[in-house]
């Protein structure tokens, strides 16, 4: 699964903004870019929302690494 990461999606969004603002596209292309841009923005937001707070500690035992929740207090 080669899913775009946040940075790549954000970069594409920025490119679309620039392209649209340059105004060299015809109306059809503009509408298409608009839809694509809105889609990218949605994806970015989704990726930000998707993340879940996790503070974990990796423990090594006999060469095996296990992950546990970590409480810094």
């Amino acid at each position, binding site marked *: 699964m080669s899913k775009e990461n946040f*940075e790549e999606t954000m970069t594409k969004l920025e490119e679309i*903004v620039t392209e*649209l*603002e340059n105004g060299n596209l015809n109306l059809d292309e503009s*509408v298409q870019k*608009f839809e694509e841009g809105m889609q990218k923005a949605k994806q970015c*937001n989704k990726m930000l929302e998707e993340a879940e*707070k*996790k503070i974990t500690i990796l423990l090594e035992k006999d060469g095996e690494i296990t992950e546990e929740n*970590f409480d810094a207090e």
Partner: protein
Amino acid sequence: MKYNAVTVTQLNKYIKDRFDEDENLNAILVKGEISNFKNHYTGHLYFTLKDENSLVKCIMFKSYAEKLAFKPTDGMKVMVFGSVSVFERDGVYQIYVKTMMEDGMGDLHEQFEKLKAKLEKEGLFDQTHKKRIPLYPKVVGVLTSQTGAVIRDIINVSTRRNPNVHIRLLPVPVQGPGAAEQIAEKIKIMNEKKLADVIIVGRGGGSLEDLWPFNEEIVARAIYESELPIISAVGHETDFTIADFVADLRAPTPSAAAELAVPDVYELKEKIISYQNRIRQSLKKKIELMKLRYEKCMKSRVFTDPTRNIKDRYIILDTYIKRLETRIRNIQKDKQTRYVEIVAKLDALSPLKTLTRGYCLTEKEEHIIKSAKQLKADDEIKLKFYDGEKNAKVL
């Protein structure tokens, strides 16, 4: 008198046995400064250990030398552990070193400068080798002590910037013997198992000795070889370590490292919203522009008075037709005049007029007879009068 001499070999054997029997010499810890260091191609290390007054030869076999975590060099103050024995062939005693560790830090500043110069020359600090820190790492790996302010600061700053951040702490000792090896090892583990998108390696402030693991070559090399981008955060703003020079990004403090590694989600969201607005504005502008163009077209005479052109053409057509009619009439008139003239002339010349006065035309076989000689008796002729004709026969 009989001399009871022993051979050199016997002597050296005797002395060797004496040494080997001595418990103190079998397991001894000696400290001194390395000189005359030779790394033999076989992998064995030969050197001399000295202090102000004396020196002793040392050998460290390959199997032991391989396990060394550092590279001994001339002038290094070390402690060696091993046994003292005699090399019979040469009649010398030497320390057979099993392990060696750096004794104190010696002149740390000098070591720091030396290592820095060496690694810089090797290209470990090259900007071109530095990896970019990802804009939005999914997992932030942290290599530091499990206890203390550093990890707490990093967690606090990170969660403030992104409440949904994922921080993965891989605890390492950050000072004391073995810390450097541990740090290097853990950097490798993070890389091998791809446990993070970016790694913060750091510790809080302390003395130069405390910070020393971050000035060790093994850590520098591990950072250099790491495929995951590394942010160094060692001590305070004024503390610079070798790790800082090799790292892809140097943070002045652990809190600053968290700021560099974790993007502010609220800022990112603002940015996305502003992009969305700009996209909307652009499209709106485009559509308005199109509308203006459309309206301009619609205002053109072609659309406001579409029959106007046709009407204009009609008018032109009508004038043409009028001119044509006049012209035809004129031609007709001319021809008529000419006709009347010709008819009058014709009339004047017409034999018919003469016929009315009592003349007649004589024809024979459709030919007009102009002379009596043309006729003979019994010729059938036709006499044409003004009002008709009669057949006749010449007598």
